[in-house]
Structures are given as C-alpha cells and as structure tokens.
C-alpha cells in the first residue's frame, strides 16, 4: 500500500512545471545523499582500502626482499658445500694415492724378499747338489777301485801283493778322475 503510494506517478496534483527545471527539494536531497556518501566513505572506507593496499604492497615487497635474501643465503651455502665437496674429493684422491703408493711399496718389498728367498733356496740347492755329487763321486771312486781290484785279482789271480795292487789302482783311478773332470 505504502509502496503503491510511494511510486505512484504524480498526476494532476503536481502543478504542471517544466520537467527540466530544478526542484529545490531534489537539489537539497541530492546534496544530503551525496554528503552522506562522501563523509562516511572518506571517514571509514577510503582510508581502510588505501591501508589494505599499502599493507599488501609492503607485505609483498618484504616477501620479495626476504626471498631474495634467502636465495643469496642458499647460494652461499651451496658454494660452501661445493667447496667442501671439492676439498673432500681432493682429500680422497690424496688418500687413495697414498694407499696406492703404500701398496706398491709393500708389493715391491714382497717381491724383493721372495726373490731373495728364492735365490737363497737356489743357492742352497746348488750347494746340496754339489755336495751330493762330490759324495757320489767319492763313493764311485772307492767302489770302482774295489771292483777293479776284484777284477784284477780275478785276472792275475793274486800275482801281485795287495799293497802294490792298491797303489797301482789308486794311481789309475786318479788318472781317470783327472781325465774325466
């Protein structure tokens, strides 16, 4: 009902004035309405919005700066790690080289000792062989002498006395021995 009245078009009861001419009441209410908007917005809304924008700008700037700083820090740490890694690698290389040299030394020592031992063994073996062969030669000499005597005895049938025979044979074997050696 009130709405109907509110928006009812004015018919005859408003005197026919040119619709383009300003009406005081509308000018006044326009001013009041605008001043309400201006005063409340200037008091409450615009500063708050400006502050929100400024806050965000400051926050974003701070974040960017912090990110930049963190990046620089990270780069520093990375360089540090890389340096340490390079050092560790050098150290490892050095240790390996040392170990290799030590191993080489050990190997050379072992070979030298083995060679020395082998030479010693060879020398001792040769000595043994020489002794054995000398002994065998002596055995052989005596054995040959005995056999020769036996043989000669059988041939001449005791024509010579034993002393003279032994001297004869000894002499012969010595000749044989010096001729064969």
């Amino acid at each position, binding site marked *: 009902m009130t709405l109907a*009245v509110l928006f009812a078009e004015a018919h005859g009861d408003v005197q026919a*004035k040119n619709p383009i001419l300003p009406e005081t009441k*509308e000018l006044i209410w326009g001013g009041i*309405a605008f001043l309400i908007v201006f005063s409340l917005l200037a008091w*409450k809304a615009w500063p*708050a*919005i400006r502050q929100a924008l400024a806050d965000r700008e400051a926050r974003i700037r701070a974040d960017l700066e912090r990110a930049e700083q963190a990046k620089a820090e990270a780069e520093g740490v990375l360089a540090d790690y890389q340096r340490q890694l390079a050092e560790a690698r050098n150290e490892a290389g050095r240790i390996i080289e040392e170990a290799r040299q030590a191993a080489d030394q050990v190997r050379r020592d072992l070979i030298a000792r083995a060679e020395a031992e082998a030479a010693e063994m060879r020398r001792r073996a040769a000595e043994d062989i020489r002794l054995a062969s000398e002994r065998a030669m002596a055995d052989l000499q005596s054995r040959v002498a005995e056999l020769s005597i036996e043989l000669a005895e059988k041939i001449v049938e005791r024509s010579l006395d034993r002393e003279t025979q032994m001297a004869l044979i000894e002499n012969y074997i010595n000749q044989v021995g010096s001729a064969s050696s």
Partner: protein
Amino acid sequence: MILGAFEFPPIDELFRWKDVLLDDTPVAINKTAILMLVSATIVVVLFVGGSRRRRLIPGRLQNLLEVTYEFIDRGIARDVIGPEGARYTPFLGSLFLFILFTNWWSVMPFIQFPPTSRFGVPLYLALQTWVIYWFVGFRHHGIRYLTGHIFPAGVPKPLYLLVTPIELVQLLIVRPFSLAVRLLANMMAGHILLAALALLTAYALQNAPVIALGPFLLNIGVMAFEILVGFLQAYIFTLLTAVYIGDSLHPAH
C-alpha cells in the same frame, strides 16, 4: 494504423513524483529523494562494510572495492591531477559511486527511474564541483587564478576584448552548466526512451501481440546500453571534475 491510437503520457508522469513526507516543504521527500538515499545507503554499506575486515588475500568484495579505489586513484585522480591528486581521491571516488548508483536505478526492474534525470541532482553536483575548483584555485594561486585565466599570457592585448569574456563565462557558467546538463540530458533521454519502448510493448501486446516482440527486444537492448551510459556519465562527470581541479592547481595559462 494499428498504433494510431497510441498516446504517449504527459512527460511529467515520467519525472515528477508525489511528496510522501514533509509535503510541500523545501525538504519534501519524493521518489527521487528516496532513491538517492537508498543509493547512498547501498554505497555506504558496500564500501564501509566491505572495507571493515581487511585481509591480505582479498575476497571478491574487497577485491571489487580495491579495484574501484585504484580506478579512481590511479585512473582519474593521479592521472589527471598529478601526484597531489591522491588528496582528492576520496571526493572523486564518492562522486563517481554516488552518480553511478543513482544512474543505475534507470535499469532496476520495478524502479526504472534515475534520480539524476531530475535537474536538481546534477545541478547540486555541478555546483559543488564549481565551488571546489574555485576554492582550490584561489587557495593555491590567489587572485592570479582568476587573472591568469581571463588574461592568458601570450595573447595580444586587443584580443583580450574577445578572450576575457569567453574565459570568464567559461569559468563561471559554462563548466558547471555543461557538467549538469550533460548528465541530466543523458539520463533523461535514456529514461524517456526506455519508457516509450515499454509503453509501446504494452500497447502492442494488447492490440497487436505479433509486433510486441520488436519494441520488447529493443527495450532489452537499450537497457543494456543504459547500464553502459550510467557508468560512462558517472566516469565523465568525475573525470571532468578532476580536470577542473587539476586546472585550478596548475593553470595552463
């Protein structure tokens, strides 16, 4: 023809409203006044309420308010006036929003009437702009604001006969008058056009329903256009106000 009997109602019926309160006083309240007060309330609720809870990551409403603020602050105040234009952002922003929200009643269903099509409203706003640019001019340049405008440097003395009256009339009358009339005429014309098309549609529906679709579709199209016009006129009014204030701060002459 079919439309031969169509009669357009008296123009007063489209623009003049009964007083509903304080009848026949200088502060009588009618539809125009109520719509302006409702506009003011909407703008205040939207902007004061919306800016109350500030968040770092804005919601839709906060985003809208911030975009509006930047539009006025960067797009109008600082762009037109210069760095010191930021001081005028609150005024220019309030001006823009008030005009925008009163203009848009023209396409609001069941209301369909822009208070800015009543001369009193644009006249008040234009006079306000007029007072402000004179005040700013005199505050910053004293009497030289006026003399600099009406006796521009570099103009041959005899030409002052011609230039001085033109500049004076421009400063005193043309600027506020053109501001007020531009807004009034645009909103009034839009309102008449929409009313005519709506009445035509209604009349056609009763008498020749087949052709009712024509004015109906045209009406929809013009309504969409009126949304644009409402925005554009609010923008132009605010922009020119900023231009006049800027001219008072740094007179070009």
